[in-house]
């Protein structure tokens, strides 16, 4: 599937090598991946709190986590990195993230067309059967995915 002219996308290397940026500032890290999905971690940090009374994380960092995890899912399914743009992203906040716990986000690309990638994913904070967020979205590649 991968074009031999382009290097195979390796999310672990991608996260180890990236420059600062928003993902780096949030502390997002690589966890694992498969042929069309990636799992990333967002460690708990006080500066990401959205509700000071409860200590619950803001929803913005979880949106960023899922945007990145689903993006990686697309590049994994495609086999190589391709600069693309998020077209839309919908998140259902099933429950608040538990204060102090790392949030794990798993993003999958379940359909890839010439210009659009369809993605979905879930986030949890320890038990994958007790998700805290569900996401669905699309990405667009200006130059086409293939």
């Amino acid at each position, binding site marked *: 599937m991968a074009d031999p002219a382009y290097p195979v996308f390796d999310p672990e290397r991608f996260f180890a090598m990236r420059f600062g940026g928003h993902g780096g500032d949030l502390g997002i890290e690589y966890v694992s991946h498969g042929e069309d999905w990636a799992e990333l971690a967002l460690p708990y940090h006080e500066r990401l709190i959205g509700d000071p009374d409860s200590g619950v994380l803001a929803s913005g960092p979880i949106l960023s986590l899922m945007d990145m995890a689903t993006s990686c899912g697309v590049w994994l399914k495609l086999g190589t990195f391709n600069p693309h743009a998020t077209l839309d992203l919908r*998140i259902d906040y099933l429950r608040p993230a538990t204060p102090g716990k790392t949030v794990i986000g798993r993003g999958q690309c379940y359909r890839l067309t010439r210009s659009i990638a369809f993605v979905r994913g879930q986030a949890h904070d320890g038990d994958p059967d007790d998700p805290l967020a569900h996401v669905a979205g699309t990405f667009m590649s200006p130059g086409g995915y293939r």
Partner: protein
Amino acid sequence: MSLPPYAAFLGLIEEPGETAPLYLLPFTIGVTGRPGFLHGGALGGLLEMAAIGALKQALGAVEARIKPINVTVDYMRGGRDKPTYARGTVTRLGNRIANVEAFAWQDEPERPIAAARMNFLILRQE
């Protein structure tokens, strides 16, 4: 209105507005996605803060906790390396549910770079 730590992390500046506060997100390395462009997550975070700010202003003195149920973000144009503004509008303020929209722009409000629709659960204190 006091901003949470996450707003300070983004570098958000809040300015009072007649119907809803206006939010300014300065462009920094910390909100960069691919080089030279605003990260979609940071932009989504800005829109969520704008939606929450609009809802809090609409609730005024009402004692209530608000919980986000969901958000849908549409990305229309790439965010470039300049300041981004956002403001929310409460479409409907019900007893239990609020529907809120927010738009983000850079050059002119008429040319939005992203929009969000959010549903909130409102827990009113008796």
